[in-house]
């Protein structure tokens, strides 16, 4: 099949070019949102850049993307993952009558087919899918590393097709914790076992002694808003792979496990001996966190001399 590859994203999503490069011998073009160094894109073999400098809503973006894909006859479209793209890209995919595969790990073009490997079934399985024809792929950019292959990138400003159907009445910024939990080597994660926001202090003290970051289950960030969303681990939050993951007062539902399965050593602290997390841990302690964590923190402070 004829394949032109279009990567979509900001300059920070350049990692996706690494996935695009697996389609050997194909031209790679980039729909660049916002400002960015076009020369840098050229260094990784991107030969054409469409630059969209105005911020538009998801609906308009989906129309703009659909037009561009049709105009350039792209058969592979690669996009980053966030709630903006999760809204805009499926609409474009529907207009293009094409499948959208998310959480992509790898692609292998074989003759007229494409084999795509992705995480699915709630991140509990690696699924291999065969596709013929146009396809949209969504993946976290940090998963891939483009290699150098310098070309001269041409640049073309892209006029968006703006459709005003949804009116934004107001926008309220959310607090950011400034953590990059995805990169943490050591994580202390907290869940609903904590009764009050102030009590999270216990986890922060433990984390400090260990030099760990604090993560959390969905209800702590989404429901209770005790921590900002960059702490949220799981299927709908961040995926982490630390050397040590200490889960405190988290029950261990499959959607939480989906985010931390790749941790090397997992420690679970829960006062319910039947908590599902105990079936997925290396070391578990059945104990009330309120009596256990202060003792553990003190012990660690002694031996680590911190």
């Amino acid at each position: 099949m004829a394949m032109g590859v279009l990567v979509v994203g900001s300059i920070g999503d350049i990692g996706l070019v690494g996935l695009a490069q697996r389609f050997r011998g194909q031209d790679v073009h980039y729909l660049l949102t916002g400002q960015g160094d076009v020369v840098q894109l050229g260094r990784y073999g991107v030969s054409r850049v469409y630059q969209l400098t105005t911020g538009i809503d998801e609906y308009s973006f989906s129309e703009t993307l659909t037009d561009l894909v049709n105009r350039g006859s792209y058969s592979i479209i690669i996009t980053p993952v966030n709630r903006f793209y999760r809204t805009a890209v499926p609409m474009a995919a529907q207009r293009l009558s094409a499948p959208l595969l998310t959480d992509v790990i790898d692609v292998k073009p074989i003759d007229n087919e494409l084999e795509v490997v992705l995480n699915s079934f709630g991140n509990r399985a690696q699924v291999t899918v065969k596709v013929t024809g146009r396809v949209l792929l969504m993946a976290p950019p940090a998963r891939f590393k483009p290699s150098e292959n310098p070309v001269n990138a041409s640049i073309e400003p892209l006029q968006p097709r703006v459709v005003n159907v949804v009116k934004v009445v107001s926008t309220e910024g959310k607090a950011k914790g400034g953590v990059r939990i995805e990169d943490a080597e050591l994580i202390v994660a907290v869940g609903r076992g904590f009764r009050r926001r102030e009590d999270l202090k216990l986890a922060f003290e433990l984390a400090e002694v260990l030099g760990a970051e604090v993560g959390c289950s969905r209800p702590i960030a989404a429901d209770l808003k005790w921590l900002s969303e960059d702490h949220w681990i799981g299927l709908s939050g961040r995926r982490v792979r630390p050397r040590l993951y200490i889960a405190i007062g988290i029950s261990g539902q499959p959607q939480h496990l989906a985010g931390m399965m790749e941790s090397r050593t997992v420690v679970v602290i829960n006062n319910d001996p039947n908590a599902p997390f105990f079936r997925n841990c290396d070391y578990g302690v059945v104990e009330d966190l309120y009596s256990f964590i202060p003792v553990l923190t003190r012990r660690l402070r002694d031996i680590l001399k911190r």
Partner: protein
Amino acid sequence: MDVVVLVKLALDTGQLRVSEGKVDVESTPLKVSDIDRNAVEEAVRVRERVGGLVHVVSILKYGPIQRRLQEAEGLLREVLAMGADDAYLVADEALIGSDQSVTAKVIASIIRRLGKYDLVIAGEATVDGYTGQVGPRVAAELGIPVVTYVRELRIEGSRVVAKRDLEDAVQTVETPLPALVTVTREINTPRIPTLLQIRAAVRKPIGKLTLADLGLTLKPTIKVESAVPMQVKRRGVVIREGTVDEKADRLVQALIQEGLLTPR
């Protein structure tokens, strides 16, 4: 106001069956995808406030159809018991393993046949696919506005006013009806039906349809080759006995042995 709510009968990913190193999809049980219960709850609340009907639409994605039909009906009765008025279940061999563009086309076709609808509610994402694509796809197919990740919903005359939960902001938006919204898990707490409601649900209609009934022929665009479960071997050492101090000691010793802590 007539509300359509989209309910997926998803693979229960907490109970994936495995045989010969592969996920055995056919013998894995189905469940109502969690967030779709929030969608049903919200639909019922809208009807309670402004009147109308709540229709459930569900496209069966996992075979074998003959065995799944009964399972699917039982699950749909659960959401009917929550207060929905009727349900449409599309079960057809051609839909097993199909991609979401096909699902969306079938859903849109049913919604169009209903004739009258004001609001379509879907979940933020399913527990098995977790792609969140079907909502926006259905909106694109129907040519109506979409508002995703809604955690607060109000109907004001012929408009929807909604609060969207985005990564870095909470956005308040409004759009005219008919529209499609996708709701988050935080929007409400789904009700647990009473015994009486469960009994009443037995008599509510479930329309079973095939693609032929809808006059649709759809060709597959993807083929699932295999699904390999991610299995992680864990030590599973659980410390149950002893005082708090003893437990802390044992844990610290274990972490030292794993090379995760170096005493100074």
